């Protein structure tokens, strides 16, 4: 049994691509080995931004011997009339390097052929490796490629070495003009240069000695452990930004955490600004005291041990310059009259064909007014009108031009600085949040309301211009915006009909009835799909529960997201309770009999039998009460009250024949049952809840 050690040595690959390339490599090796019938025990893989390592063990020297049939010429053209071999057969024998007496007759669906049947002794694994490795490398895909030599093979960065050892012997291959060898190298700055690898063990030892921590997880652990030590030294908490941690792991072969200090005078800048400049501009992490206040310290990751404090000092110098920039932007922007920036938004395009940001802010005014009233937050009207007018002004600040991720935040902070009321600046500050259905809950209702209006305006505008979301394609983030709206509605328990807001938003982009109808329909569908999706995937509601509360929802043209959520929550509780079986049975029975019934008027005077009269009396008496419960979102009470009718409904079904010949009578009975069904369906369509065996869960 043998092993293959493969290392692709490259110039620094962008950190965000490393993990993906490694997975592709591993999968390609697996696929090719399977294709060529090469068994193996195990594949190990590891990568840094300068090397991709694959180590495969348990590879036989040859692939399994297997029976093999080689067809020659058909018998009638292989032998002449006297039974002697023809030229065709002689050539076949010669070509396959066998003797004439090894040729046998082979029966095929096409008739009798001459040929050879033998045991193939298997192919040599090293030969297979030689042919598949270039294929594997050629099959890897990258987000962006480059060309660097005459081979003109596109790759992510130049390839500098190919280490290929099979059973500790170098295997000759070539890819992109680079010939394989038995050489590898360590850390770019700290290693002793290239060395010859004799075995896997040798390779690992050399890397260890030459400042390469090969395994991703070991680098992660090393960084986290170092950060923890520094937290103790600084008596603070390092805000570990996950994307930044990933960046450290995949851009350092030998990560060493260091820390530094900066002048406290920069702490007068808002912490949001300091963090953004640190993280995005300098890839350094901020540090906070126990009380949450920012400290004048930073933490970073170096690729070498910093025994001489050079790395620390250099970073201390550079962060000061960075904060000087931040201070410059902050001061320059501060000199401008923030409110008058709004006029200049006329020159800033929102989206192609959707006008300027100025026009957007105008549209936001009518939307916010409607939403504030619909959700009963009239006290917020004035501050939110002001916030809506000016929420896009910060797009014209230097700070946001430099760091677009600060949009909203900066506008809020400038207004806070100018002592604007909290209700105004906070609304602007948070109106790009949350980023989707997951993420932090907003802490300010006003920012939630403004966020809803901003996003519904964007969605309506894009859809009115024919932008479609299909499959994974959603370049304008329409889904993300819809998800965020749903989240805000649920987080702030906003009990209102989203459809009225959609209608006004859509009307801003089209005045034609047919077009408007189409936009409304597309938006309605979008939200239904988003609600279903988030409820199932993120809130983990059962599939059938979501279906049950969504079915029929919106049939009256309304879309109350919060109410749908509450019903889903209630039904999710009910399916865990013993009542559910009765509700399901009852609703199925109702649905079964009224399906395909068409709609019918109901008349009390047509009631005949005792049981149907009782049922009507009980229904009339309960209807009001159950309806009240539903209006107050007391779905558990509503359904248990409904269940109190079970006995009279059962008696009705037992004693009264619905499908009688008499049309009037039949239709009247169906009409009564339809009204009962309508009431129950206001909670959910229990008939589609899936039965679960006692004791089991789905």
């Amino acid at each position, binding site marked *: 049994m043998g092993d293959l050690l493969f290392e692709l040595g490259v110039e620094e690959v962008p950190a965000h691509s490393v993990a993906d390339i490694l997975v592709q490599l591993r999968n390609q090796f697996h696929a090719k080995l399977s294709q060529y019938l090469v068994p193996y025990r195990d594949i190990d893989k590891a990568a840094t931004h300068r090397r991709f390592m694959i180590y495969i063990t348990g590879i036989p020297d040859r692939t399994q011997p297997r029976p093999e049939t080689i067809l020659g010429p058909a018998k009638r053209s292989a032998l002449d009339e006297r039974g002697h071999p023809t030229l065709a057969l002689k050539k076949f024998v010669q070509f396959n390097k066998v003797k004439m007496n090894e040729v046998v007759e082979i029966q095929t669906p096409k008739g009798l052929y001459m040929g050879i049947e033998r045991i193939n002794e298997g192919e040599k694994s090293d030969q297979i490796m030689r042919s598949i490795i270039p294929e594997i490398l050629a099959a890897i895909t990258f987000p962006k490629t480059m060309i660097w030599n005459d081979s003109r093979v596109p790759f992510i960065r130049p390839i500098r070495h190919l280490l290929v050892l099979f059973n500790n012997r170098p295997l000759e291959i070539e890819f992109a003009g680079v010939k394989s060898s038995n050489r590898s190298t360590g850390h770019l700055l700290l290693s002793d240069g290239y060395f010859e690898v004799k075995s896997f063990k040798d390779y690992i030892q050399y890397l260890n000695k030459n400042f390469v921590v090969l395994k991703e997880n070991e680098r992660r652990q090393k960084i986290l452990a170092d950060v923890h030590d520094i937290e103790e030294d600084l008596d603070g908490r390092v805000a570990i930004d996950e994307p930044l941690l990933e960046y450290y792991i995949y851009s350092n072969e030998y990560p060493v955490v260091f820390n530094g200090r900066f002048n406290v005078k920069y702490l007068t800048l808002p912490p949001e600004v300091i963090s953004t400049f640190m993280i995005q501009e300098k890839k350094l992490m901020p540090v906070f005291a126990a009380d949450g206040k920012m400290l004048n310290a930073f933490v970073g990751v170096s690729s070498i041990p910093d025994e001489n404090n050079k790395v620390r000092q250099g970073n201390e110098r*550079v962060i000061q310059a960075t904060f000087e920039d931040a201070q*410059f932007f902050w001061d320059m922007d501060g000199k401008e009259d923030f409110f008058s920036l709004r006029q200049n938004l006329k020159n800033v*395009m929102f989206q192609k064909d959707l006008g300027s940001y100025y026009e957007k802010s105008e549209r936001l005014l009518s939307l916010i007014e409607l939403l504030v009233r619909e959700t009963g937050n009239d006290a917020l009207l004035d501050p939110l009108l002001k916030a809506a007018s000016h929420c896009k002004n910060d797009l014209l600040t230097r700070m946001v031009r430099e760091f677009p991720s600060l949009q909203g935040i900066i506008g809020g902070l400038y207004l806070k600085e100018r002592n604007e009321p909290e209700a105004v600046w906070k609304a602007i500050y948070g109106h790009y949040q949350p980023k989707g259905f997951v993420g932090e809950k907003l802490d300010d209702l006003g920012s939630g309301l403004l966020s809803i209006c901003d996003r519904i305006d964007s969605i309506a505008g894009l859809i009115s211009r024919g932008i479609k979301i299909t499959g994974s394609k959603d370049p304008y983030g329409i889904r993300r915006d819809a998800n965020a709206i749903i989240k805000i509605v649920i987080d702030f328990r906003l009990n209102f009909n989203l459809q009225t807001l959609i209608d006004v938003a859509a009307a801003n982009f089209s005045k034609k009835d047919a077009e408007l109808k189409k936009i409304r329909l597309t938006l309605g569908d979008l939200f239904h799909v988003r609600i279903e999706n988030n409820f199932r995937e993120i809130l983990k509601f059962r599939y059938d529960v979501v279906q049950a509360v969504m079915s029929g929802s919106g049939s009256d043209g309304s879309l109350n997201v919060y109410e749908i959520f509450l019903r889903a929550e209630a039904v999710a509780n009910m399916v865990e309770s013993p009542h559910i079986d009765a509700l399901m049975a009852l609703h199925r029975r109702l649905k079964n009999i009224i399906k395909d019934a068409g709609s019918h008027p109901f008349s009390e005077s047509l009631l005949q039998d005792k049981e149907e009269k009782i049922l009507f009396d009980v229904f009339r008496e309960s209807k009001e009460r159950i309806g009240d419960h539903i209006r107050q979102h007391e779905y558990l009470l509503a359904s248990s009250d409904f269940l109190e009718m079970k006995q009279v409904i059962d008696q009705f079904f037992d004693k009264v024949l619905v499908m009688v010949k008499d049309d009037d009578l039949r239709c009247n009975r169906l009409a009564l049952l339809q009204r009962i069904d309508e009431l129950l369906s206001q909670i959910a369509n229990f008939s589609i809840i899936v039965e679960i065996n006692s004791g089991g869960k789905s």
Partner: protein
Amino acid sequence: MSLQAVVLKLQEFWAERGCYISSGYDTEVGAGTMTPDTFFRVLGPKPYKVAYWQPSRRPDDGRYAQNPNRVQKHNQFQVILKPIPSDGQLLYLDSLIYLGVDVRIHDIKFDEDNWASPSLGAWGVGWQVMCDGVEITQFTYFQQAGGIELNPNSLEITYGIERLAMFLDSRNNLFELEWGNQISYAELKTEEERQFSIYNFEFADIESLRRLFSHYQKEAERLVTGGLYLPAFDYVLKCSHTFNILDARKAISVAERTNLMAVMRGLSHRIAEKYVQPAGGKANG
């Protein structure tokens, strides 16, 4: 180490490695890449090695001489190696060692930074080289220039001279640098930075600049149509600088930016095509 010592050392280093040493260009450019010694040399099949010192103007980076790390005119040292050598990274590290950097005690990182100049129709793949957190060099494998696919490709190494000198001299503030022979950076540059910052941010006349842009554009078009692609390129550079001042004045809307970029890109492309295949002449480069 003084700023001029850095330049002299780099000139020496790259001259020894086969570069011809050129001067910076005498029209305002935003970066060494825009100099004809780069823009034209990277086109076509002929190998070139060139190095030069290029003062570069970024009006928006002006800070009235008040920022320790940013100026509206900084100095670049530009190296073009065509075709790309297989040991480009090591050559580069050697140049740092030649400047006196102990590469074993500094955190030198090649950090993804794909360079693109939309107005020149040029892009490349590469890194910014960070040294203890300071960006000291842009290291780029050119893929396209003037909208033309390059073959062979070139390696571009652009050193930020001020950043490098600050690093070598452990300075916090570039105005504290020595330019050379006891003359300080502050003495030579403070007033220049102050005046140009005022001009770029406050004083530049937007309407005049718009007119200038359009004049330069027309002249470039006329020249390139007449086959005079070298003077035409000068006028594209003037367009680019005018655009940058307008941008510093915040006078360019998003839509306008796209349009003006497209104008410059179109001109660069026509110029590059003329260079690669001049009418009636033999192929250049």
